[in-house]
């Protein structure tokens, strides 16, 4: 990441640190982690659910790219991906790979719920659609739903 200028100017931008920008960057960071994480999932999950992994991976890359554009539109430099991410638990087989996928989706859902709060208009609608997609994917991986996807204060009670 050497590009420090924004799309609109020559100078490194003095970007006001708004809640919408912070939430967009946080969602972008969550998508970076999901893209990385699905690489791990794909390596461990076996062939049976390969198509689902690919669909999710592609979907998260598309959202990541959209969020990058959104950050640029807000006049800031998009959050870069880390070289590697610490996994929340060891992924050794198909079952732990599925659990990781569900966990990744839950984290992404949380970031999008916060973005719904901070954003307005089309950005809010997009965040809500992304929250929905992550919640449905989490349910596909875990076989169960939660009452309040993305809302950590409800302790993610399983339903």
């Amino acid at each position, binding site marked *: 990441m050497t590009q420090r200028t924004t799309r609109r100017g020559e100078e490194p931008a003095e970007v006001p640190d708004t809640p919408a920008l912070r939430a967009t960057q946080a969602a972008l960071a969550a998508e970076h982690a999901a893209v990385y994480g699905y690489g791990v999932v794909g390596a461990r999950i076996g062939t049976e659910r390969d198509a689902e992994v690919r669909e999710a991976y592609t979907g998260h890359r598309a959202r990541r790219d959209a969020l990058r554009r959104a950050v640029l539109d807000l006049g800031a430099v998009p959050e870069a991906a880390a070289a590697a991410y610490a996994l*929340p638990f060891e992924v050794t087989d198909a079952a732990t790979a599925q*659990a990781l996928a*569900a*966990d990744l989706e*839950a984290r992404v*859902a949380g970031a*999008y*719920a*916060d973005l*719904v*709060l*901070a954003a307005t*208009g089309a950005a*809010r*609608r997009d*965040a*809500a*659609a992304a*929250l*929905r997609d*992550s*919640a*449905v994917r*989490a*349910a*596909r991986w*875990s076989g*169960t*739903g*939660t*009452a*309040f*996807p*993305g*809302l950590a*204060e*409800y*302790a*993610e*009670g*399983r*339903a």
Partner: protein
Amino acid sequence: MSSGPPIELPRRTLLLTGGALAALTGLTGLLSGCSAADGAGQDRTGEAAAGGDEGLRRRAARDSSKLLAHYDATTGAHPDLAGALTPLRETVAAQLTALQEDDAPAPASAPPVPSDASAALDELITAERTLAEERLRALEGAPPELARLLASLSAAGSVHVYLLGEARA
């Protein structure tokens, strides 16, 4: 993610405060006042148009109450579906609790349930999908905290559509 504890929800007040909200609430009150005489349908329209937090929240609670009654009626008519429906029903009950303020909405009446179990599931799927879409549309005019909650409830509804489809298969 390991499976968490069973759902046990704190009642959380998500209402915002502030002058803008006070203004909106006043407006909602006016609209609700006129439309109350015109029946429930008009009432909903008035509340949505006003975009007031109280109105949106009350409407969301009413919708969840209606959905809960739909689950109960379906399980009552088709006890064999209880295994699949009970966890989803509990989710809807938890959502209703989170939406309720001091006044619980009057118990909603359930629609008639088809005698065919698969058709009954289809109607629940339609109800969940319709409500999830309505809640997405309601985001536009919702205050931030309520928008976040409605987006989550809409996502949960889409999850139910998926899970009900699995139960039906």
